[in-house]
Each structure stands twice: as C-alpha cells, then as structure tokens.
C-alpha cells in the first residue's frame, strides 16, 4: 500500500515537474512581471518572428518579485518589469545586469522625460516600459465642488465619498504635498505632522484599494478617487463625463522599467525582446493595451485618437513639476507606516 502511494506520488511529482519546466524549445525567454502587461498578439508575433518561446510568469507585488529574484541570486529570470523604486534596490543588491546597448537598435525611441531618473541615473540598466502619474478623478454629478488639487480632497463636500490607493507613500505624500513638502522628506517630525493632517481626511475616505477602483467610481460607490494611470484610462473609457485632475501641488510620477537580472540564463533573448518592444508600432499596441503613459516617443504619433489624451503627456506638461517617490531611510519609513496605520484605524471609525 505504501509502495503504491509512493509510486503514485513519484509519478505525480514527475508530472508536476515536467509541467513546470515546460517544453524545452531551443530558445526561450523567462519573462517575469504582473499579469496582463502584454497583449497576447504581441507575444505571439515575437515568437513567430524570432522563434523564442516566452514563458510568462507573474508576481503580485514588487516586493515579492525582489524576494524571488534574490532567492534565485539574479538567475532563473531573463527579463523583469517592475516599479522604479524596487529596481533601485535590485541594482544596489547587484541583481541587475548592465544592458548591452549595441543590441538595442531602437533605444533612441525612448522619451527622454522618463530617462535619467533616480533609480538608474545613467540609464545603464533599464529601459522604461510605461509610466504613471497619480491623478484625481471625480464625478461632477456626485461632487458639488470643483477639484483642482490635493487640498480640495479635505473638503467636507466629499464626506464618505473618496477612494484612495493603498500605498502609504502616495497617500501620506498627498498630505506632504499639501504642506509644501517633498514626497521624499526623511524628517520624522514632518511625516508625523503629515499623519496628523491625514487624520482630518479620514471622514472623507470610503475606500482604500489598489485595484479596480475605477469600478467603484463608475458604479457610483464613490464620487472621487486618487488612482493610478491605468485605472484612470479604464474609468475614462467607460465614462467620459468623469473629470481628470493633475493636482496643482505637483505630480507624482512613477515609472515601470525592464531590466535583465545579472545571471539571466537567456540574456541575448531578453535584449532581443526589449528591442522588439521598442519598435514604435509594437509599443503602440502595448501601451494601448496596458493603459499607462507611453514611454516611447516614436510611438506617440501612432497612438489612436481615442487613447491619445490618456496615453501621451499633455502639450503643456511641465516635467519640472513632477517628483518621483524614492526609497527613504528606515526611520522615515517607520514614521510613514505608523502614520498610515493610524490613518487606516481612523478611517474605520
């Protein structure tokens, strides 16, 4: 009986490991990113053109990505797309390989606004793939007030009617911005003060959520929301009567970028993939699919009219008014978490 069990078990494990490894095609690429970052057609076309099989696996948060990558000691994966701040950490930990620019013919297509940022000041390691700005979206039919900046969110007209994303750096950052401070201040006293300010916002908060907030805006669950770009795009596509506000206090910018781990088993294939995605016509398909700001200057002109206002930066966009959220000291981080926990506790009251 026991033998039978172990035989079955061995068989099942074997089947599992086979299923796990997939077919051993000659050339393959282990792509590691969130779900839904590429349209299926783009991946299929890439495989058809180059013969490289794409193994697409997912993580749910940047942090779990980094944990996985450091467990794998910078191996296993060939190409990763993640958020700016985590890439900085990954680079610091020596997990990221320098790009071989000679293999990237189309590198000149990248919009310079998104280059030379804090996480990779000399653009040696990364190629941006989509950018987001934190914007306020509101439904004029449900909110009796014109919103122009973060400060307006404190108005009592929004009582129990506001949704925000669940990222404390972004939300505490709103309070910091209203106070005229930087997102990246490391002074615990200032952060604590922002926390106090945030407690006054609590009565207006109905919802703290990172995903699908657009559904709540569209269905009338909330009247206004602080959201990420892809959600803004979805919301505006579904209901054009909504209003998008670039906060007057300044704009928080986030960039997603592609990088190749230092021990990537298929580095050549990864370069080929990056270069393929940099082609303007391919990039256009990708950005229209993911709904983030197009980081490919050459693709801007190709973006369909209906998407243009969401995916390309406005003419009068002032790159100087943006600030990126950067890693800060552990002490400052701790102050943020505490302010955030107090804020969440207050929201539930």
């Amino acid at each position, binding site marked *: 009986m026991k033998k039978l069990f172990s035989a079955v078990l061995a068989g099942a494990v074997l089947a599992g490991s086979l299923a796990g490894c997939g077919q051993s095609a000659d050339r393959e690429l282990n792509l590691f990113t969130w779900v839904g970052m590429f349209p299926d057609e783009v991946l299929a076309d890439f495989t058809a053109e180059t013969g490289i099989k794409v193994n697409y696996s997912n993580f749910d948060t940047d942090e779990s990505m980094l944990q996985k990558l450091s467990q794998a000691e910078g191996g296993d994966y060939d190409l990763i797309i993640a958020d700016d701040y985590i890439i900085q950490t990954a680079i610091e930990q020596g997990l990221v390989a320098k790009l071989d620019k000679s293999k990237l013919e189309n590198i000149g297509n990248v919009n310079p606004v998104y280059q030379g940022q804090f996480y990779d000041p000399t653009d040696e390691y990364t190629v941006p793939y989509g950018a987001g700005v934190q914007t306020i979206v509101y439904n004029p039919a449900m909110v009796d007030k014109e919103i122009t900046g973060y400060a307006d969110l404190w108005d009592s007209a929004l009582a129990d009617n506001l949704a925000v994303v669940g990222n404390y750096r972004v939300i505490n950052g709103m309070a910091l911005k209203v106070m005229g401070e930087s997102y990246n201040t490391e002074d615990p006293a200032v952060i604590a003060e922002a926390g106090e300010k945030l407690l006054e916002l609590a009565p207006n908060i109905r919802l703290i959520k990172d995903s699908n907030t657009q559904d709540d805006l569209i269905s009338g669950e909330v009247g206004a929301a602080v959201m990420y770009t892809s959600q803004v795009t979805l919301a505006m596509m579904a209901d054009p009567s909504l209003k998008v506000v670039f906060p007057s206090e300044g704009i928080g910018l986030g960039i997603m970028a592609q990088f190749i781990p230092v021990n990537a088993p298929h580095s050549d294939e990864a370069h080929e993939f990056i270069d393929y995605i940099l082609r303007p016509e391919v990039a256009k398909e990708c950005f229209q699919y993911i709904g983030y700001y197009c980081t490919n200057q050459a693709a801007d002109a190709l973006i369909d009219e209906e998407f243009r206002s969401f995916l390309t930066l406005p003419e009068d966009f002032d790159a100087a008014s943006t600030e990126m959220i950067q890693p800060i*000291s552990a002490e400052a*981080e701790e102050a943020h978490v*505490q302010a955030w926990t107090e804020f969440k506790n207050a929201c*539930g009251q």
Partner: protein
Amino acid sequence: MKNTRRGLWLTLLPMYLFTLVFVAGPLVYMVVLSFLQRDESWGVTANFTLQNYTQIFQPVYLQTFADSLGLALLSTALIVLVGYPFGYFMARLSARGKKRMMLALMIPFWTSSLIRLYGWIIIFRANGPLDQLLMGLHITSEPLRLLYTYPAVVVGMVYALVQFMIFAVYSSAEKMDWSLVEAARDLGASPFTAFCTVTLKMTLPGLLSGVILTFIPSMGLFFIADILGGNTVVLVGSLIEDQLVKAHNTPFAAALSVVLMLMTTAMIAFYRKVSDVKELEGLL
C-alpha cells in the same frame, strides 16, 4: 512485544520528522527573526533587539489588536447564532438527508473563496441586487451603500467561516444520545430546560471547537477586510501584511506574528482546560 512497540514508533516517525523540519523549523526561525533588527533598506541584520516587541505597545498597534479582537468576537458570536442551530438541525436529519446536506455544504467550499467574496461585492454594490430588492419593496428609498462598511466585513467573515461551526456542532450533535433528551422531557423538563441541561451540555465540545476554529482565523483573514471593507477595517493580519509587503519590516512582522500566535495558543489551552477534551472535535 518490544518489536511491535518499535514498529509503532516507526509509524510516528514520518510525521514527527516532517513536523520538526517543516513546521517547527520555520517557526523557530520566525521567533529568531522577531528579535533581530531590520536592515536600513531591506532584510535584517544580526543584532539582537527587543525593539520589535516594545513597538507593539504603541497605542496605534494596541488599537489594532483591540479592533481585531472586537471584530473576531462579533463575527464568532454571529457564527454561533447561525451555525449552531444549523448543525443541530442537521444532526436530526435522516441518514440520507445528512449526506445530502453535507454535499450541499461542501460545494461552496470547493469554489474559490476569493470568487465567493466577489459575489458579495456584486450584492452589496450601490444600486446592486440588494438595493434593487429593498427599494422595489419600498423598504428603503435610496441605496444603502453597504459595500466597504463594517457590517459588510462582518457578513464576509460569517460567510467564510460558518461552515466550520456547522461541521463542528454537527459532529458533536450526531454522536449525541437523543434518548437522554426524551428522558429529561419525560421527567417533566420543559423543552428549554431539556435543551440547556442535556443538549447544550453534550454539544458543548463541538460548539467550543467551532468557536476556536472560527475565532482564530477571523483575526487573520485580512483579505476579507480588504475586499469587503475597502481596507478601512484594520486587522492584525492586514498589519502584518503591511509590515511585510509594504514596509519591508520583516522583524516587526515576525514579532506581531509571535504575539498573535501566543494569543492563539493561550486560547487553545484555555479551551482544553474548560472543555476537558483533548481533541478539537469535528473539523468536518
């Protein structure tokens, strides 16, 4: 005889080994982590500190523990109210009825719990099915806006955990000798007295294990607070997740986990003492 004994020890060996390596090992590691200092940006440094534990005593974190306990108590009370009669009634069904009822209860169990919770979102939405029904019946005149409120979280908790209570009570009640209740009635006890003196007493182990099996998870089921509470109801579970995933403060998360585990252990010990039963009865 000695041989037999050795043979019997061999049957224990696999589970002992597995438990020691893959349960005790990780947990000991967690306790160790909880006494270490967090690194500047990521990971931990090998410096001993008690700071993670003293940090828990800040009012904001104590508040979270208190709120978690409150929610768990309320949910468990409701689960008892809903689940106890169900398990009791179920035990009185015919053999065939029991089997069918068991199936009926297991099928939702096999459906993804995430998806089931999303079903509740559809129900609770402003102008969703519930609002339409209530407004159609002229019970309410405008949307209730139930989604992302405390009651919605409580409903989610009860929904996710009530089966454990039902199964626990059922397995106790099923073993019960019904003739005792009849004897009590024959001796002139009112149905209520008979219930209190006989039925309740005999189903108590099931009831208590049901309480344990629902109370403990309800402190940690943070995704219910996320999905139905819009994240504005903070549980210890969400706090641990925040610390771990967002703040990268593994040692503090470990310390919170150790405290939560100690609370759990204390509860189980208390349960054993009160019920004088060694087994957590009737998981199913």
